[in-house]
């Protein structure tokens, strides 16, 4: 088979690249060895958010049943049929998977199921159910994605879970230990806590969510404390035996902790082995495929996007790169140069980080001003019982151009659109302060944070 564009991997990077290429009238084939949708739709973002949503609701209903809440009272404790929860989640995944396939079809992209193996930079073999198919393409887009990092002394299998298995358990584990308190571990750990598990974190670093500053993670830390979730910082896991994890605590003492399930979420690594990457003469950088600002690799007409190219390993980055490559191949002038890629943690409360914090730009010698507005002073957050958190803006002191926007609070994730746009348009504090924000909404906290940075917030 021959085509103009060959996309490997149908995750949010690959399938978006293929759809965009199809829209632009380019003859495109996409190859996927597993299910269309990739990590994100099948065993990542979406199933995790579905589980988080269900857990959230279960916790909310439990609160109603105890003391009663806002006058709402449940006669008895709510009951959870976890198998049904998982079936519901699987239903969503199935629909999205079918949806992606339908979108590809609509865009006239040819889909081939099987694992691609490259013989050279432009040719691969795919073992399909109908035998081996060889595909040669003018352009190749590598979107092979990533997989959970495995610790050699805690190999996945049995009661040792990666995030993928943690999303498909048949029952809520009574005792769950999570190794790694990054966003994936915390999102899932918090969800299981809400569903009734006794949860403990083992984290080698000195803090949870190590890429975020302490002020931002403090509300999450408080949530964990309030819900009796033990967090052992500076602790190193070392082995698993008879359903007990052994680890060295921060004082160097050997400890063990029993658990029904052990979830290991210590990061993700690119899928670079076993599919002939070595035959493609593509340069690497720190273990990832090296790309330039056009997402082009060192090999002519071989492009790479998404998790296989490095941090930030986020679905929306992969998709943005996918669109861009399709457009470049179609002759448009594009480069990948976003001012900001929002990162959202769907913990409780949620965290958003877009752009840089004051600490992060200090090294560049940039003088900053910072404005912070607590959700406690926001009417909408109070009416929604979601006042635990704040919005923080960091701007240059000299011209007030916004450098970073951070927020923590229940449901703040939906503020991320405006935050990203503000950075992308090069907004100054005055632009945000001068835009009318609806009352009562949580977005007012954004305008107030801008005013606070300018020295004249109204509601604090």
């Amino acid at each position: 088979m021959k085509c103009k564009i060959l996309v490997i991997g149908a995750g949010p990077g690959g399938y978006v690249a293929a759809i965009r290429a199809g829209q632009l009238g380019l003859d495109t084939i996409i190859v996927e060895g597993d299910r269309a949708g990739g990590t994100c739709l099948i065993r990542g973002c979406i199933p995790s958010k579905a589980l988080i949503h269900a857990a959230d609701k279960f916790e909310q209903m439990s609160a109603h049943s105890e003391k009663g809440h806002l006058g709402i009272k449940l006669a008895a404790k709510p009951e959870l049929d976890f198998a049904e929860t998982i079936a519901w989640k699987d239903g969503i995944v199935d629909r999205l998977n079918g949806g992606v396939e339908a979108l590809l079809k609509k865009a006239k992209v040819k889909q081939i199921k099987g694992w691609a193996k490259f013989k050279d930079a432009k040719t691969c073999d795919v073992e399909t159910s109908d035998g081996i198919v060889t595909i040669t393409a003018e352009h190749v887009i590598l979107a092979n994605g990533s997989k959970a990092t495995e610790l050699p002394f805690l190999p996945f299998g049995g009661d040792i879970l990666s995030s993928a298995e943690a999303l498909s358990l048949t029952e809520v584990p009574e005792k769950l230990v999570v190794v790694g308190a990054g966003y994936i571990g915390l999102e899932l750990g918090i969800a299981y806590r809400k569903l009734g598990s006794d949860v403990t974190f083992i984290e080698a670093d000195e803090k949870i969510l190590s890429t975020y500053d302490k002020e931002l993670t403090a509300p999450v830390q408080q949530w964990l404390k309030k819900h009796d979730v033990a967090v052992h910082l500076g602790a190193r896991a070392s082995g698993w035996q008879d359903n007990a994890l052994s680890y060295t605590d921060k004082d160097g003492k050997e400890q063990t902790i029993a658990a029904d399930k052990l979830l290991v979420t210590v990061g993700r690594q690119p899928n670079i082995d076993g599919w002939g990457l070595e035959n493609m003469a593509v340069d690497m950088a720190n273990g990832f495929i090296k790309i330039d600002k056009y997402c082009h690799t060192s090999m002519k007409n071989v492009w790479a996007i998404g998790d296989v190219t490095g941090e930030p390993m986020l679905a929306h980055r992969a998709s943005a790169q996918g669109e861009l490559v399709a457009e470049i191949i179609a002759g448009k002038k594009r480069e990948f140069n976003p001012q900001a890629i929002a990162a959202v943690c769907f913990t409780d409360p949620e965290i958003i980080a877009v752009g840089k914090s004051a600490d992060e730009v200090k090294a560049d010698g940039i003088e900053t001003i910072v404005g912070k507005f607590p959700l406690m002073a926001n009417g909408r957050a109070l009416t929604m019982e979601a006042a635990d958190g704040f919005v923080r803006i960091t701007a240059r002191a000299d011209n007030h151009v916004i450098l970073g926007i951070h927020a923590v609070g229940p449901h703040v994730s939906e503020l991320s659109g405006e935050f990203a746009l503000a950075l992308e348009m090069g907004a100054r504090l005055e632009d945000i302060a001068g835009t009318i924000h609806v009352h009562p909404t949580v977005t007012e906290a954004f305008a107030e944070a801008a005013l606070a940075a300018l020295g004249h917030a109204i509601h604090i």
Partner: protein
Amino acid sequence: MSDNFDVVIIGGGPGGYVAAIRAAQLGLTVACVEMRGTLGGTCLNVGCIPSKALLHASELFDEANHGMGQFGITTGKVTIDITKLMTSKEETVKSLTDGVAYLLKKNKVDYIEGRGTIAAQGSVKVALSDGGERMLSARNIVIATGSEVASLPGIKIDEKQILSSTGALSLKKVPKHLVVIGGGVIGLELGSVWQRLGAEVTVVEFMDRITPEMDGEVSKTFARILKKQGFTFKLKSKVTGVKKTKTSLSVAVEPAAAGGDAEQIKCDAVLVAVGRKPYTQGLGLKEAGVKMTDRGQVEIDDHFQTNVKGIYAIGDVVRGAMLAHKAEDEGAAVAEIIAGFAGHVNYDAIPGVIYTMPEVASVGKTEEALKAAGTAYNAGKFPFTANSRAKANRQTDGFVKILSCAVSDKILGAHIIGADAGNMIAELTLAVEKGLTAEDIAYTCHAHPTETEAVREAAMATDDRAIHM
């Protein structure tokens, strides 16, 4: 205690208290006169905040009642204790009105409790709530006296059976059948509250659709969603009277156009939600020579000044949308103008939100307005059924619609029906305010999985290039 101020503000609602704080920040001496007994005006006491508190709680109740089965949570019997519900609402209101009192104090604004009257240019007489009188001399006066419920001729609001929004915010029990007169924002929000808590709700609307000022497609979809939730709509109809018996009410409804049969609707509560009108009673405007419009609003120029020098007016009492954030923005602007700066409000970028489930939010022009003006535009629409976060949150009702100029690609209007539409409209408001294009939104990386991705997809759809559709 001095009685001389740079600015005296009459009314402590969102317009008035924001003007007071901003003026004080700019170094002026300020008094804020409020007769209600608490600060925060309509908005915090009997408007935005209590209604949103009830909407939040009733939504949780509704969810507990119906919404959990599909993902394996069984809740059994769910009850609601209206007294407790009202107490928690009042607590929220109190924490916010106390908060405003604290802010005035912190900014050294003199909060004077009583009813203010403009005695003459430059002086305000206050009939103090504690008795007695105080005469204030004011270099500048800002009228921020807000609005009150508009009523219908022949229908007397008693706040027991025949309610205004204020009465509907503090009912003691759930009515069996509530008839709402007026299918606007307030009627639909409060109708939703009581519908969720168990009332049968019938909305009578004069026009041929609910929320008639909204984008037609949006209001059509919105009506369909509310119907599915159990609302009954009587459109193109008017209420001509309400008969009271001891235990029930009978509402006389006639077709809006002349002729046609009248009908009687039996119910046990009526909510009159036909709008609000400016409140200027006892202000002494006539005596002070302040001009009014024929709609009863205080007339102002582009800089909030009335025909009398040194007397300004803002908020619900003047022209424009009766919205708290519009009042607040005018409050900040008038303070800046009085302090000698260039205060400004952009009336083309004032968003509005309806806090039903789903929420409805909009900013800028509707499709009808663009057609009427003969503007060439592109429309891009993206449904939440195709948004993965909405799927995971079981909130797939609605869509994002963006209207952009066919020539310049500039965003002219945006309309959202969706669970979190109220927060999502902020991004599009920023876009309208700053004259951004649909492409600007399309080329901004939106976090996955969030419902804001639907905003980006709608922007791409204006150019027929949405990905997930």
